């Protein structure tokens, strides 16, 4: 066999680390904007640096993925499922990079300082434009919801592979060989 059958350990490490970070971010984001309590403050203080970390890791991950092809999906998977799997993976890349950029961009366009805590502050990436702020802020919300729905479908599919089909797809990411 010329193709590796599990993902490279580095790809697996990034996958699970980032999955935990991103799922946390979705909950942190949804929770902070619906709270008027002190958790609004500390969740927002986590949200921005964590979001920027996801952005940086996503760039590294994209570079790694482009140079290290994924193991092939099982031959007997229906074509539509293969297409859906690939499309959702690339959608994930778009969101992992795009959503933090929208967050950073919206704060820039709103002329809010992009503070990450500890005195760290990022430069604005867009000029002050309140209308653009509004569009990006709405986009941040709807893209986050799209992210969440994609994550649900992805997790459901992964569990289906692992528990129902038991075809080694889940193991390719967990690293344990298919029994």
């Amino acid at each position, binding site marked *: *066999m010329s193709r590796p*059958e599990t993902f490279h350990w580095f790809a697996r490490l990034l996958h699970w680390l980032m999955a935990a970070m991103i799922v946390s971010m*979705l*909950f942190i984001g*949804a*929770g*902070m*904007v*619906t*709270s*008027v*309590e*002190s*958790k*609004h*403050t500390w969740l*927002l203080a986590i949200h921005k640096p964590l979001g920027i970390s996801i952005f940086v890791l996503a760039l590294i991950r994209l570079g790694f993925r482009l140079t290290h092809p994924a193991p092939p999906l*099982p*031959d*007997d998977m229906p074509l539509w499922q293969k297409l859906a799997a690939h499309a959702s993976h690339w959608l994930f890349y778009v969101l992992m990079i795009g959503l933090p950029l929208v967050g950073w961009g919206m704060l820039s366009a*709103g*002329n*809010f*300082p992009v503070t990450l805590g500890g*005195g760290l*502050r990022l*430069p604005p990436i867009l000029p002050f434009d*309140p*209308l*653009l*702020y*509004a*569009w990006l*802020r*709405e986009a941040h919300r709807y893209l986050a919801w799209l992210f*969440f729905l994609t994550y*649900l479908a992805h*997790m*459901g599919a992964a*569990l*289906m592979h692992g*528990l*129902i*089909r*038991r*075809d*080694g797809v889940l193991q390719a990411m967990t690293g344990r060989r*298919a*029994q």
Partner: protein
Amino acid sequence: MTDERQESRPPVRTTGRWVAIGVIVAAVAAVFGYVGGWLAPERLTPKRIVDELQSTGGEHPGFRRNHAKGICVTGRFESNGALAAFSTARLFAPGNTPFVGRLAIPGGNPYAPDGSIPIRSFALRFDLADGEQWRTGMNAMPVFPVTTPKAFYDLTVATHPDPATGKPDPEKAKAFFGAHPETGPFLAWIKSAKPSASYATETYRSINAFYLRDAGGQRRAVRWQVVPEQGPEGDGGAAAGDADFLAADLMKRLGQGPLRWHLQMIFADPGDPVDDATKVWPDGRKLVDAGTVVVDAAEAQAAGPCRDVNYDPMILPRGIEPSDDPLLPARSSTYADSFLRRTSEEAHVPGTAHPKEARP
């Protein structure tokens, strides 16, 4: 590999596993729905507070949902350096820092007569030389009526004008104030408060407490106030029947020269409440005059530089930090909600009302 997979084909009974997958996915979705508030309708959210403010003030797309009527001002803060020993924030070193400010009256109606309420407000966004910002919104009153966002919401509901009479129901208001003794100092003050004829002669206060942090890392609780240099003399009082005398007075005064306020920091003594905006700190607290807030120009908010500013009091430079006052996170999250509503309306985001009125 393919063979292995063939061997591990599922047994016939997969129903239980399908159910397990369904339960996992549904559980995650439900937790998200709860955290995001859709499955927790009883939670007090920024949206509920702003909806309530909006329904009290009326639908005025493009305007702030509170303090809707106001005027933009610009100028600079001339620091005398006296506060530099207590806070590392750059603007307290000797020198000037420009600001974009806004003078306003509370309430969600941008056409409310200036005499209808005895409170004026002053908001400032200082643009520090190093790119940091300090935003503050101050009210010309000694205390806030309530301690918590929940009580603020209940107060707004209790004093909401009755659709039938156009006036708040006195019974509901009485019941609220009866159940909220912390409103006492505010009620005592407002009984004798008169709407001022000028923005320029008011003392504006942070009301919420904050901390200053010095270069050695020590933190001190403070409240601040801006105290006018100009006295009430010569403002001639409000013309009867004039609803917009505050802006007219401001323009007239600025025609004669800049207006000045002293930015003063009041330091808490041990034991002073730093998380309760309904309580004044006794007189005689240590006070440091940090310099002068100089306003030299004003501009209608319709196209002025303060229009698209969210004076979120949690946007602070290093050297100033929030206290545990529960009003502060509520202000931050509701101002963001109000700011998003009005900018979305300006941007004609689908589903928002278009700003149709001329802005005063």
